[in-house]
């Protein structure tokens, strides 16, 4: 399966701390995307990192990709209560370009 798998399943931290979530996958990819979801509805796109990239930043977010280990990490710095949500990684590529394979997600809770 190409499906990404996030680790940990749940993460609970205090405001101001950093949160790190990891994603592992099994096959070659074209890109890997991170999403946030609140209240089980629409997914908000955070960052896309392509297979030839190693690191990307967006505001307080930093994503790394290690294709040799087939893994990615999402770091949220200086977390806020509003960051509380489920975070998903999704991979695209191989013979099914365009189709995203999602992991089960990490539930992040940030306490004020």
């Amino acid at each position, binding site marked *: 399966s190409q499906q990404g798998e996030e680790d940990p399943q749940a993460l609970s931290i205090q405001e101001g701390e950093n949160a790190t979530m990891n994603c592992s996958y099994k096959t070659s990819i*074209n*890109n890997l*995307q991170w*999403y946030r979801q609140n209240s*089980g*509805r*629409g*997914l*908000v*796109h955070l960052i*896309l990192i392509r297979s030839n990239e190693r690191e990307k930043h967006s505001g307080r977010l930093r994503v790394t990709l290690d294709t040799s280990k087939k893994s990615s990490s999402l770091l949220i710095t200086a977390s806020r209560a509003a960051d509380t949500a489920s975070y*998903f990684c*999704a991979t*695209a590529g191989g013979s*099914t*370009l*365009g*189709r*995203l*394979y*999602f*992991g*089960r*997600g990490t539930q992040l809770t940030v306490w004020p």
Partner: protein
Amino acid sequence: GAGVSQSPSNKVTEKGKDVELRCDPISGHTALYWYRQSLGQGLEFLIYFQGNSAPDKSGLPSDRFSAERTGGSVSTLTIQRTQQEDSAVYLCASSLRPVDEQFFGPGTRLTVL
């Protein structure tokens, strides 16, 4: 500009009835996707449209599910003879190209009684 929109936001139906779910992608996006999310199965790919090419239907769970994309824009997902296991949130997404970011709509929550 406007994001992906979906309608209805909620749909409650009786087992055995047909339902239609609508998706309006971001203008200019050539690729359109349907996924569904349920507690037991997580986020599952259903079908993918790219331009005028034949859609990738490999994720449709049964022949009760079908989808169309008219004029390269609006898409309709149809579920015939709904079953209780069809209850889920159905999410639509679009992207400029298949290799680009996919932007999701708010979803349609389908409940089959």
